[in-house]
């Protein structure tokens, strides 16, 4: 089936089997391997990407469902000049990653939420819900929580 995905602002005309999940198409067809598969049954959230601005588990969505849609992956987080995203800076500063495998999923969950409403940094419960939506086995999560709070504080345009 012929589809077109816009991934990180770039158009990908693709011919994919209807059964292929979005994660596989991003990784194999678009060669964007920053999106990782941690469980392939929608629990761990490592494969989270933004589809039309909303966070989705890309292991649970078929690529054909996204035809004509806009997908954002971890490769599209940094600014056009390569300037790191506030979340990328904050994750490093808070040591919110060790092995790095789950990291793209946490980044995209947080990016989707912060870009909709940078004010979530003022609401610890909403941040907790974000962190609680994915699995990390290395960090114990607390550094990830702190990183999201820090990114919210350092969000462009936020009063400091």
């Amino acid at each position, binding site marked *: 089936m012929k589809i077109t995905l816009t991934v990180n602002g770039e158009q990908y005309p693709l011919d994919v089997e209807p059964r292929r999940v979005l994660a596989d198409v991003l*990784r194999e067809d678009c060669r964007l391997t920053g999106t990782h598969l941690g469980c392939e049954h929608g629990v761990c959230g490592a494969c989270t990407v933004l589809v039309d601005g909303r966070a989705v588990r890309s292991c649970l969505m078929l690529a054909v469902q996204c035809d004509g849609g806009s997908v954002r992956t971890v490769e599209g987080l940094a600014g056009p000049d390569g300037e790191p995203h506030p979340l990328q800076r904050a994750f490093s500063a808070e040591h919110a990653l060790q092995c790095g495998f*789950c990291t793209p999923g946490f980044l995209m969950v947080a990016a989707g939420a912060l870009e909709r409403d940078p004010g979530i940094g003022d609401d610890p419960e909403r941040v907790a819900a974000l962190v609680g939506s994915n699995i990390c086995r290395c960090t114990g999560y607390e550094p990830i929580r702190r990183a999201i709070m820090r990114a919210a504080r350092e969000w462009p345009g936020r009063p400091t």
Partner: protein
Amino acid sequence: MEHWSRREDERLLTGAGRYVADMHVPGCLDAAFVRSDVAHGILREVDCSVACEVPGVVGAWSAAELADLPECPRSAATLQDLPPVPHTLLARLSTEEAVAGREWPVLAKDRVRYPGEALAVVVGEDRYRAEDGAAEVVVRIDPLPAVVSPSAAAADSVRLFDGLSNIAFLGEAGEPIEESVWREAAVVVEARYRQQLLMPTPMECRAILCVPEHDRLTGWSGHQMPHRLRRELAALLGWPAERIRVVVPDTGGAFGSKSAAFPEFVAVAFLAVRLNRPVRWVEDRLESMLVASRGRGQDQRVRLAADADGRLLAYELTIDADVGAYPHLGVGLPMQTAWMATGPYATPRVHAGVRSVLTNTMVTYPYRGAGRPEAAIALERSMDVLARWLGIDPAELRRRNFISPDDFPYQTPTGRRYDSGNYAAALDLALQTLDYDGWRAEQDRRRTDPDALPVGIGLSCYVERSGGEPGGLHEFVSVEAGEDGTFTARCGASPSGQSHETVFPALVAETFGVDAARVRLVEGDTDAQPDGLGSFASRSAQVDGAALQHAATLLIEQARERAAVLWGVPAQEVAWSHGTVHPVRDGSAAMDLAELVKATGPMRVDDRFEAGMAFPFGAHAAVIEVDPELGTVRVLRVVAVDDCGRVLNPMVVHGQAFGSVVQGIGQALYEGIPFDQDGVPLLANGLLDYLLPTFTEIPPIEIKGTCTPSPSTPLGAKGAGESGCIGTPAAIVNAVADALRVADPDLLQMPLTPDVVWRAARAPKLEEIQ
């Protein structure tokens, strides 16, 4: 580097990291395995004929059919048959005696011994095709009764290997204790503990990609021991090791579980050579939950004797260990528990006995802590029981029995020689950080308040072992100075999240007195670093770190000697300072090492460095609140004080300790594998059934440290990173026992699910039976 606190971070945060599944190799085939859905049975039929016809399937083979696979004309292989899975030679994890007569076939031949055991392998143009083929393989198995606990299996009423006992290994540490000791002691605690099977669950499952090129094979794998994997693959293929290259790209966690050559690895390497094409296997999570190695798995009995003042007289630990269906990877692993049975106490008599029993489960293998959690949990739970029986504060009971700081090195009755320690200092810091007295007061207050939920305070003092076992306490490293002013450090370690690229160059740079940016690290490639042991037993900082520091000092010596020859002065008149050499006396300008290399040729030190075992320790404390009506446990606070000697990077060690505590909480409260009556794990909903801690379960955790350097290396580092798995579980369970004041410790078996806690809350209290 300005944005990044670790060198690893930029690529891992931008999607530029490269894990095995990310590798793009043209023409690469995917392997999928057909697996047994029964735990134990006679394999009657595996028919791959239909699978072979599925579009996109390159081939599908059972064990019998692989033997007939025609040799690829372009292949240099001379393999006639799929070799069996190798056994672990390291650290007595397995033994020749245990594996004798018990072959672990890569694909089951006539018998299935654990659920998920591979029956056939299907190779396709991509994973979708491979799985299409796997779905068409016809399998017929006549089920046999299954045994999934060591106690049940030890009776040998169901045998995994005909004519052989399920008991595959017997061992002991220490001298047996005379009955009179127990008879004459003022108090003897007896208890049984179950150390449940756990799944290490790194976020990246296992993966291997094998690429044949000319007469060599390159294996890419997220792996802790690339040199071991190279050696094992070479032996399996009957090749000299030089024809195998193992490369470890980014690895998504390991926690001990990624250091062997697993059945799937053997099949992939074999098929890549036979087909002369790149073949990869990327395990999926549901597959991993069935067939990745397990951790823990012990049924324990303890006896702990003390006098009326609480001075320990004797401790006996008897272990029936569940080592899974094949003894190949971890039949000797429970000896780690036996050797560490003494713990931090000066108990005069300690004896530990081990029976390793085969069961119809996937194989048990090291998981973060690897035998030491089982030792610490058994002893520390027993200490709290003893304290309650004697009416002595559990902190005070421990203080009365600690090995004194003056008694190191300390030879334990169970055969360990502890290098250094100050156990009381760690406990004192933990109590102070927790506000122990404050929580005891709160506990008393709540006991008089009928509306308040009971709180409990639990302590756990541990000592563990890091570095490895004799014969595996060394590492191979090199340090090289370049003409461009940079340094290259190489070592045999292989990280899976431990920040080696940041920590080791910083250590080498500090030794040289140069900026860390001038040092780069090369590891995880057997072509770049021909010898190595790897990353396991919390050894990398302790052993590789000390080795790199040593090699750097040797390179400084070499530089001084070369400069001395160049300048015609004695070597002792050449000084080293911040990456330069200069004459001590005449005050002429210093020469940068880069200039010296240009003038005198390449400068490199290769070193085989031998460290000693180290014994990190610590004290963990937990405060919990129990709802006796719901059986729920709410962790209010955890304090972890760990001592890993010299800390190379506080941020990294803190991160390791914190994450490890969370895994320890997982064992105490959440993680467990339920089995149905036929021995099949009840995990159909994957990670919704196996409850890993999520952020919702994370209590306030405070990490602190004391510093008692290891005397076994000049660096003084001990292992860090396994502490939480070792120290935290008993603190949590002890806190629940403290809240409920349960008389029978056997009622609180991990994980402490609401069901377990609810029942325990209704059992007789200590004061009711005394």
